[in-house]
Structure formats: C-alpha cells, structure tokens
C-alpha cells in the first residue's frame, strides 16, 4: 500500500512541476495566443492551401488532420522542454540523485502536457466546427474524445524520447521544430498517405499521430468505434513504445553522467 501511495505522490509531484513550468510564467494573453490563435492560423493556412489545390471539396480532410496534429505541440514542445528544462535550470542532478521511482516522476511530467494537449485539440476541433462547418452530427463523440486523448498520449511519448535526446544535444529548438514540421508531411495531416511514395509511407507507419488522424477522420465521417479500435490500439502502443525508449535513454544517460561526472549542460 505504501508503495502505491509513494508512487502516486511522485506522479503527482511530476505533474505539479510540469504545471508550474508550463503556466507560472505565462500571461493569460500569451497562453490564449498559443492555444487558441496559433492552431487556428495553422488550420486556416493548410485548409485554404489544400482547397486551392483540390478545388475546395475536401476541406474537412485538412481541418481534421491539422486539428489533431496540434496535439504534437504539447507532446513535442511541452514535454521536451520540461525535460530539457531541467538541464538548463540545473535541477537535473537532483532528479538523478533521488532514489525515487523515476518512472513515476517521468510520466508524471508528461501527464500535465497530455491534459494540455488534449485541450488544445478540442479547441482546434471547435474552430473546425465553427468556421469550417465540420459536421459532427454523425460522430461518436466519446470515441472521438478517446481518440484525442490517445493521440495526445502517443505524441507525448515521442516527446519523452525527444526530451531525453535533447539532453545530449544543445540544439533543442531546432530538432523540435523540425520534427513538428516533418509530422505535417508524414502523419497524413495534409497529404493523403496513399499518395506518398512507398518509403515515406513506411516512415509514416512508425510515427505517432498517423493512426490517430486516420481514426479521427473515420469517426467524424460516421464510422464506428469498432472500426477504429485497431488503429487506436496501435497508436497507443507506438506512443508507449516511444515513451519506454525515452525512459531507457534517460536511465542510460543517468548512468553515463554519474560515471563521467558530466551532469551540467554543455
């Protein structure tokens, strides 16, 4: 029993840390700008671009694709920075030093961003309905909600891996931004996967987001939960796999750092 409460406590502390890092310094207007306006700008840009290219019949494709992809903002930028942020703030040594169950701390940090990310996607979908008339009348809303959460979890899993990779390099923002934009190509958000060359399709299949977007499109068009559940299972599997890899990398990093005595940032 003690073990469970201990772990919960660590989980909660991780969450709180992320919460503080995320929100304490933000002014409400900045938060509004990034959570409400930026997704809208991205959706607008790609939807209009897509309409221009395909004659406007297919707007839903782009709206939904980009709206779900917004989860990557929290997953990649949020989670990566909260881990990379430790290094800059010099608190990484303290994290290494605790005998605490690192797994709990680790995933605790991601938790806040999962909530934040899902929230962002919901807002983006809201814009979809409001401005683009995306029709949710046929949608199984709870299945869609689950899809959103699962997709956010899996992008956060990628974020955990990237966060740990960032401990090795100095160019965090460069990598983050590049991955974010590459996802726009490979996740099917803006380009129908079957129109991509084969090698690119293979890459799409091992990335998070791909199945989440496909599932969302299917659900909004009226598909059933049963149809998309294989996709969702694979999606969360991928996310957890990335998260697990990140965790392993974190432990390896800790081991190396303790061995060589190089804890601080370059």
């Amino acid at each position, binding site marked *: 029993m003690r073990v469970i409460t201990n772990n919960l406590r660590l989980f909660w502390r991780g969450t709180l840390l992320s919460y503080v890092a995320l929100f304490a310094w933000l002014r409400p207007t900045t938060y509004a700008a990034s959570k409400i306006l*930026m997704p809208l700008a991205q959706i607008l*840009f790609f939807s209009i*671009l897509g309409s221009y290219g395909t004659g406007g019949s297919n707007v839903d494709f782009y709206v939904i694709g980009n709206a779900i992809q917004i989860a990557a903002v929290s997953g990649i930028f949020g989670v990566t920075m909260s881990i990379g942020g430790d290094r800059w703030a010099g608190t990484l040594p303290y994290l290494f030093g605790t005998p605490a169950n690192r797994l709990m701390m680790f995933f605790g940090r991601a938790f806040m961003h999962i909530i934040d990310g899902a929230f962002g996607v919901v807002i983006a979908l809201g814009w979809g309905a409001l401005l683009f008339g995306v029709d949710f009348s046929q949608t199984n809303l709870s299945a869609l909600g689950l899809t959103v959460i699962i997709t956010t979890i899996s992008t956060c899993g990628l974020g955990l891996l990237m966060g740990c990779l960032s401990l090795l390099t100095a160019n965090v923002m460069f990598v983050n931004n590049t991955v974010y934009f590459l996802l*726009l190509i490979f996740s099917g958000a803006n380009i129908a996967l079957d*129109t991509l060359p084969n090698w690119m399709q293979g890459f799409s299949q091992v990335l998070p987001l791909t199945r989440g977007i496909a599932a969302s499109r299917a659900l909004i068009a009226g598909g059933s939960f049963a149809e998309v559940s294989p996709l969702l299972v694979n999606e969360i599997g991928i996310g957890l796999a990335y998260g697990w890899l990140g965790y392993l990398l974190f432990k390896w990093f800790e081991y190396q750092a303790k061995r060589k005595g190089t804890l601080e940032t370059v």
Partner: protein
Amino acid sequence: MKFRNIFVYWRTILRVAEITLRHQWNDSFILFSILVQPMIIAVLALFMLRGLGGDYAMFVVVGSGLTGLWSSLLFISGNSINGERWQGTLESLVSTPTPFEVIVFGKNLANVIQSLLSMTASYLLASLLFGYTLQLVAPLLFIGSVLLSIFAFISFGLIIAPLFIMYRGIQQWQNAMEFPVYILAGFLFPIAMLPGWTTPISYILPPYWAARALHETSTGGADLEKIMLAWGMMLFFSVIDLLIASRLFKVMLYKARVDATLETE
C-alpha cells in the same frame, strides 16, 4: 532625413551586413527559419498543389521562399535589437556616431539576403530532387521585383524591431503572426480565396505586394500594369516605413536612455 542616411552611410550599412552575416551564418535557429521550415513547406505545397497543373512547382518555390523571408523578418529582424542587448553590445552600438537605425538597416539587409537562400534552396529541392523543370516568365522583371522586395522587407523590419522593444505586449504575439501573414499576403494561394473583408488588410502588408510582383513575374502573365502597381506599392510602403522608423528609433532610444534599459531590461 532617413533617406539621406542611406546614401551617406552606404559603406557602413554594407559593413554591418557583412559582420552580421558572419556572426550568425551557422546559428541553428536561423538556419531552421530560413532553410528547414521553408523547405518542408515547399514539400507540403508540392504535394498539395499537384492538382493545379501548369507551372505550379515554380509557384511553390517562390511562395515557400517568401514564407522564409517573412519568418526571418519576424523572428530574426524583430529580435535584432534585443539580441544586441542580451549580448551586451547594445551600448557599444548606440554610443557610436552612426545613427542606430542605420545599423539595424544593415542587420536587416543581412537577414533578408540570408533568407533569400531559402528561395534558392527550394528551387534546388524542386528541380534537383523532385525533377521539376522551373522557368521564369519574365526574368528581368523578376530580378527587379526581388530587389524591390528586399528593400520593402528591410524597411518593414525597421519598424517591427523597435516596436518589439518598446511594447513587450506586442512581442508575445510574435509566434501567432507567422502563419496569418502567409495567408493574408497570398504567398501560396491567391487572396481571392479569402473573404472580401480581409482584402484591405492584405493591401497594407508590404509582403503582399512583394508576393504579387514575384508571382506575376515568375508564373503569372507578366502583366506590366499589375507589376508596376506592385512595384509602386512596395516603394510607397518602403518610404513610409522608413519615415516612421526614424521617429520610432528616436523615441525608443530616448526612452531606453531614460529608463536605463540599454544594458538590461
């Protein structure tokens, strides 16, 4: 007052541009904004606009180059003054007899030249990697458009930088201003696709007129009237921006010297 400066200080401007380029040529954040992001946008647009047919590849090259130009202006030129402050060199610059806006003009020149790379990179990407044949409809007029666009972007940047310094509230919208300008300036699709009430907003954006001139001379009908209109508007806005910038810099520097913020915030 400001125009005379450009002729008097042309040597200084070039030297500032040279030093800026050398100081930041391998900065990863800059490389991302002017190379990686525009190229990814180019790839996206090449796929998404396939249905257009015709010379859509050239259109994408020019359009994605423009996105690089704008991002560079927004993030790099916008931060050029702040950057000097963080580095601790702002005081050294302000205390020279060269008017500070001349120095920032030179820095913006460097940034714009550097970000024209993005157009070149997209060009190479499309022609070499994807095998498109790319042609310019009116090469000489295109070059003229490029030169005027450089001038227009530099001047626009000259009012963005001091505004960011003086009104920190504006800078927090920085990220949110990236895509909207891509949309309103018609970089990768005509603004006819947008609702009519946004058109006036497009008209007051110098990047819009740059996009019109560049598209018209590369993949458009090379209609001389349209091109001259675009050139005229770019010239007009450049002049206005330089006049406003003169004023802004005076106010900004005075305020900074009263508040003692040249060294720290």
